[in-house]
């Protein structure tokens, strides 16, 4: 599903002394099937943006279009449930949403609401449990006895079990161990490719954005600050530093390499291995001449 924001603004507690503009005249377009990273300093409006994608809030001005669903200040789509079954959101602290007696029931809660059959749910849970890094025996436990990281995984499983077309992830790996973070991101990416999902990832990790996203949107104070391909956005150190963001470590490394050795290796989202090869070639070239 294509996602379009057209001059969208959102004000919290509008018409009161506490009114706060969280999103300000934001426009962008996300074609179906792309993997987009949304990045911004804390408080820049990322989570607020995401709530629009599920019709949880209506824009104060402008229009949000998700596939055939339209959200304007005047109207919400009538078949909200369908929208929510097709756009799955992993919220910033999804562990707050657990409530069932067992982990299994909690994972099944979403699909049940959206009318997936019992047998199909069982099948999906069997598939998802190992994918999100949970074990079978955890399924019978109460979700409140789990560690924070395990709760996070249960919540993610609950969203994936719905099999949405659009996957929205709000800092899904915050609070997981480094290894778990990597595996989780890999799993999301694999799903994205296998099932042709449209994925929107809110993250503070430039590394993840570089690795997985094919489009980057940088937010600052509720407005779009930059947008484009990762290799174009992430090489603009000055502009990023201005909004308290840093370039990925690989770019920092390549910059340092250039200042110290006077040789340029252009940033093209290379892996560590590829960069090592480029360096090898440069050194070999220097030796043989």
């Amino acid at each position, binding site marked *: 599903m294509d996602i379009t924001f057209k001059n969208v603004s959102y004000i919290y507690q509008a018409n009161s*002394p506490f009114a706060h503009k969280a999103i300000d005249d934001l426009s962008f377009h996300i074609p179906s099937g792309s993997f987009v990273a949304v990045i911004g300093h804390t408080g820049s409006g990322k989570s607020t943006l995401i709530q629009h994608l599920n019709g949880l809030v209506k824009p104060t001005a402008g229009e949000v279009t998700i596939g055939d669903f339209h959200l304007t200040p005047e109207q919400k789509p009538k078949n909200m449930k369908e929208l929510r079954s097709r756009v799955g959101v992993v919220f910033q602290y999804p562990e*707050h949403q657990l409530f069932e007696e067992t982990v299994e029931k909690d994972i099944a809660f979403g699909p049940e609401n959206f009318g997936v059959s019992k047998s199909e749910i069982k099948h999906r849970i069997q598939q998802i449990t190992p994918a999100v890094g949970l074990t079978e025996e955890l399924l019978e436990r109460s979700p409140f006895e789990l560690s924070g990281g395990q709760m996070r995984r249960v919540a993610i499983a609950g969203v994936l079990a719905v099999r949405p077309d659009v996957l929205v992830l709000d800092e899904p790996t915050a609070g997981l161990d480094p290894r778990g973070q990597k595996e989780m991101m890999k799993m999301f990416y694999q799903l994205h490719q296998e099932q042709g999902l449209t994925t929107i990832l809110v993250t503070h990790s430039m590394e993840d954005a570089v690795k997985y996203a094919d489009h980057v949107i940088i937010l600052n104070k509720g407005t779009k600050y930059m947008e484009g391909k990762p290799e174009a956005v992430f090489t603009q150190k000055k502009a990023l530093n201005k909004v308290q963001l840093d370039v990925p470590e690989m770019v920092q490394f390549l910059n340092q390499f250039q200042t110290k050795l006077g040789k340029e290796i252009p940033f093209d989202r290379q892996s560590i291995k590829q960069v090592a090869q480029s360096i090898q070639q440069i050194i070999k070239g220097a030796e043989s001449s």
Partner: protein
Amino acid sequence: MNNSLIIGQYVPGNSIVHRLDPRTKITIIFFFVFIVFFANTLISYGILTIFALTSMITSRVPIRFILKGLTPVWFLIVFTFILHLFVTKEGTLIFHLSIFKFYSGGVIQGLAISVRFFLLILVTSLLTLTTTPIEITDAIEDMLHPLNKIKFPVHELALMMSISLRFIPTLMQETDKISKAQASRGVDFRTGPIKDRAKAVVPLLVPLFVSAFKRAEELAMAMEARGYHGGEGRTKLRELKIGKHDILIYILFAFVIAILFYTRSY
């Protein structure tokens, strides 16, 4: 989130009303609520109304906001007025509509009661609009201080109050967050048969209680870790002080009371 009911909602500001000592505000409002019931002539109502409206204007709280907050109460005011219109059978007959007879006494009584209602709500909500919950608790703790003599746990009571007040907005935010998360999982809080909607409350309440208990536990631990051990020998960061403004207001209010009792009919 429902923000239409403003009672208990502080609006930051720096007006004279904001800066008054909270004890002054509570004392004056206490007596105001009391004397509203003594008013019975046009002038006595007038002087109270002028006092209330002047306080409202000097508080610089946006009028639109006050009126919006009064909406739930408007209904009550109008309702009492109409009730009086129909029920009171005093004074002269002014209007006759089939079986209904409206008397001048009904209109006057209805108006009087409505004005009283309006003044009470206006003044009390002005207190919470211009005073932070913390200030109110501090003031109450201070004013109840004499009760310590009879072993009444004043400090503990005040602490309980300020903690509950402090966590109301947090709980509301939490409710908002959780209900959004569950709505995203297909829970429908708004439509469908009553039975389904009642069931939809469970996924909201369970996480809410879990997080409230967790938060209480964490708070208790944090307080202990920072050396809290009850009110004994505890000093205050914010000292309450009666200033020039407070004395001025007391004098002014004394005048209001004097005029009220001078002009009311006995």
